[in-house]
């Protein structure tokens, strides 16, 4: 078989790909960890009546959604050095850059999903909570947010699935995530097999993501 002819034992190849997959998983989980709560803050700022607050946030969302993520990765990597005046310049390492760019980018998308969800809750829910004496934060966290989460699960799952695949973009910074490792292996052994193994990994991961979201939707289906 091709793989063995070139002297690369399958096990060794799998362990290389496994290490790449681990990096992909780290990017995936860290991005979600930061972008999900950050997106909520951005959504709240976006909906604030104060123009000084919502206007810059609108611009932020426009830029983050309106430019390629791959370009944002490059920007965040070079900006601390090239955009700061001499004396303040610093170099940022690759992996944190990737997490920052991904978290900000996904937070912008999540923010708009949160906003859609929050604005779909009828005004009457706020009024009922107000006359019962709930505070604003009780109203938001106990009455509004649980209903929002149920409504936004499908669009959120879309983004999370995209994130699994987008993680391959960090290779532009030279990070050895799954796709880059697979590509290198593919050229080294002159075979497409590593790429298909990587493809299978993304597919399995998104199958798990899909199952998890299905389970979450089922769990919240006790009310309408």
């Amino acid at each position, binding site marked *: 078989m091709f793989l063995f002819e070139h002297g690369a034992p399958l096990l060794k190849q799998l362990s290389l790909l496994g290490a790449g997959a681990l990096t992909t998983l780290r990017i995936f989980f860290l991005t979600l960890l930061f972008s999900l709560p950050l997106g909520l803050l951005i959504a709240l700022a976006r909906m604030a009546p104060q123009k000084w607050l919502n206007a810059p946030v609108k611009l932020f969302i426009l830029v983050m959604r309106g430019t390629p993520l791959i370009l944002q990765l490059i920007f965040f990597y070079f900006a601390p050095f090239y955009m700061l005046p001499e004396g303040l310049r610093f170099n940022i390492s690759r992996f944190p850059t990737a997490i920052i760019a991904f978290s900000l980018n996904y937070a912008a998308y999540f923010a708009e999903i949160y906003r859609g969800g929050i604005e779909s809750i*009828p005004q*009457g*829910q706020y*009024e*009922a909570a*107000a*006359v*019962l*004496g*709930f505070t604003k934060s*009780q109203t938001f966290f*106990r*009455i509004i947010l*649980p*209903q929002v989460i*149920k409504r936004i699960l499908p669009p959120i799952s879309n983004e999370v699935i995209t994130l699994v695949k987008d993680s391959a973009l960090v290779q532009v910074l030279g990070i050895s995530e799954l796709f880059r490792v697979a590509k290198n292996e593919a050229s080294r052994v002159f075979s497409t097999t590593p790429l298909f193994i990587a493809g299978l990994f993304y597919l399995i991961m998104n199958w798990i993501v899909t199952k998890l979201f299905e389970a979450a939707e089922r769990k919240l289906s*006790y*009310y*309408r």
Partner: protein
Amino acid sequence: MEILKAENLFKSFVGTEDVVSGVSFQINEGEVVAVIGPSGSGKSTLLRCLTLLERVDHGSIFVAGKPMVTTSPTGRVTYVPEEQLRKIRLRLGMVFQNFNLFPHFSVLRNITEAPIRVAGMSPAEAESVALQLLAKIGLSDKAEAYPYQLSGGQSQRVAIARAMAMKPDILFFDEPTSALDPELTGEVLKVIRNLAAEQMTMMVVTHEMSFARDVADRVIFMDKGQIVEEGNPDTLFTTPTNDRTKAFLSNYHVNSGA
């Protein structure tokens, strides 16, 4: 004893005709007041001002003798500080036209959540209060149901129980049966009747004239943001003095007869 007093209330919105312009009245303990009048006459806006869902542009409101909002002779409107407003809010209950139950809570939790979180009642006590209220409105078997499983009439009865669980001094109803078909209207009106029999102080905005006539101690007729006529229901319905009241009531009888 007077439980609510409103003096010279004004409220308007940009771009709508629904306004309150110069409304004064008071409600005594145990009294049931029905507010009737054509659409856009400011009835609902008045109720929303009294329950702090809207802030008045002018005027004073006193709850159990204590000021909620006052207006100085120079026209400066002052609401009491937020922590006092919170206390006043607890004395006021509200039932909405569209029920506004919390869909993600069971019927029981819809009723117990505010007593526990806002009034600081123990969960056990809140639950026993809720179960008593459910028994009273004939929905003991629905404690574990969710709002989507209820009919409109059942939903509104739960909404009434939810408001009553906070033991308000006065309960406001904003067209409580307008979203219900006639068959379901009766079961909600029956619950309100029972509350009236227990001397619950209530102010009910309604289009149900026969209900207003039977249950209310006093009827207020509003038109164009003002109280045009008020009095005991027998007098107001049989011998209204104001022309606008006469016109409204005659229209109403034509409509309801059709």
